Structure formats: structure tokens, C-alpha cells
């Protein structure tokens, strides 16, 4: 028997690490990975609450979150490739125009 609080705390730690990476990191790929870390933290709390309330739909929602994350990763990495092709850099501070 593990208190639900432990799972929620772990998920909170992962989410905070993701936000910190999003703020601190300057490499656009690492920033993207921090977003994935945040999504993973949220998924853990979905599964933990599903177990707490005996509602299987929580796990189905994790499935949907993963689908959205996959779509986001495909489009985001394509955008990163397009940005690198025109700017020759991955540093977000050097990317200051929305125009490609």
C-alpha cells in the first residue's frame, strides 16, 4: 500500500523539472524534451487518480495525451529542422524572428 500522495509528489517533481528545463535551457531541442517531461508528469497523476477512483477512463486519457504528444513531437521537430535550415543555430536566443 502506497499513499496516493507519493505518486502525486513524484508527478509534481517531474512537472517542476520540466518547467525549470523550459526556463533554463537554451537549446531548442532540450526545451522540447522538457515539454515531454511535463506531459509525462501529468500522465502519472492521471494513472494515479484512475487507481484512486477506480475509473478506467483516466487511463484512456493517458492514451489520448500520448497521441497528442506524438503529433506534437512530429510537427515540432519538423519546425526545428526548418528553423535550423535557415538560421544555422539551435539557440533560441538567436531565433528572434517568426519569419522563416
Amino acid at each position, binding site marked *: 500500500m502506497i499513499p496516493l500522495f507519493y505518486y502525486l509528489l513524484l508527478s509534481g517533481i517531474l512537472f517542476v523539472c520540466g518547467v525549470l528545463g523550459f526556463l533554463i535551457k537554451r537549446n531548442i531541442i532540450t526545451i522540447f524534451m522538457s515539454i515531454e517531461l511535463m506531459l509525462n508528469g501529468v500522465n502519472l497523476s492521471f494513472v494515479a487518480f484512475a487507481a484512486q477512483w477506480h475509473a478506467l477512463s483516466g487511463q484512456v486519457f493517458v492514451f489520448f495525451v500520448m497521441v497528442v*504528444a506524438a503529433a506534437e513531437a512530429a510537427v515540432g521537430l519538423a519546425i526545428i529542422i526548418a528553423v535550423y535550415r535557415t538560421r544555422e543555430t539551435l539557440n533560441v536566443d538567436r531565433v528572434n524572428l517568426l519569419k522563416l
Partner: protein
Amino acid sequence: MFHLILFLFFGAICVAGAVNLLVQSHPINSALSLIAVMASLAAEYLLLGAEFVAAVQVIVYAGAIMVLFVITIMLLNAGKEERTKGSRVAILIGVPGVLIGGVLVAWTLLYRSNTQAVPIGALKGDPHDIARLLFHDFLLPFEVTSVLILIAIMGAVVLASRPEAVARGPRKDAE
């Protein structure tokens, strides 16, 4: 007791991987530590009884998505991250704000909520039950996500292809 030891072991790997993602300066090291986080999260899902979610976590997240990341890192030949000073405000205001928020959430969970203990394998999420939900109750969202994936694939192809290749149209010399 054994359950708690397993939880703490995989939780420690999770936290260590997340912190390592922040500390490393080369993106490939961050990607590898993120894979460690995702794999140990799959073990946590198994502890909660979510078998299907654990399998999908390993296949989709640690497999497909992270392979996409590693391929992009190698394709762009990403080197060490260069430190620039453009983000002082984000660090000075954002980092303490995030830390205070995290501590507040943890404090609320600890003292203001009466959550119960979750037994091992509390809710069996085997593929049979998940499929019944997914193809019965959530049929419309499921179909909508398939459209979303299709749009994402087309968007990725258009964005990542070279502009002149798009302007030229499909190749004629193939036949």
C-alpha cells in the same frame, strides 16, 4: 513493503533522470536521461496496475518519440549548448516562482488532502477493458485523434521538406 521499495527505486531513477536532463549541456545526454525517466515511469504504471498504459509508454514514448528526438539531434549535428544572456528575466522571476509553486502544491497535498493508500495493482487496466472503453465510450475522440495524426504527418512533411522542393511540385522524372 516490497511494493514501497519498488516505488522508491523507480521513483529515484525518475527524479535522477529529470535532474540529469537539466544539468547536462549536450542534448544527446538529455535525450538519453529522458528515456531513462520514461522507462522507469512505465514501471510505476505497472505498480499501479495499468498494464496497457505501461506497454504503450515503452512502445510510443521511449520507442517512437525518443527515436524521433535522437534522429533530429544527430541530423542537425547538435553540439554543446551555448550559454547566452538573453533570458535573465525568465530565470530570475521564473525559477523562484516555479519552486514556490511546487512547494505550495506539495504542502497542499501533504496537509490539506485526505488521500488514501493505493494497493498494488489497484485498477487492472488490461487491454480488454481499455479497448472496450476506447471503441465504445470514446469512439468519437478516438476517430478525431486519427485525423489529428494524419494532419500532423502532413504538416511535418510540408515543414521539413525544402522550400524549393515544395515549389517544384512532385517529381516528373520518376517514371
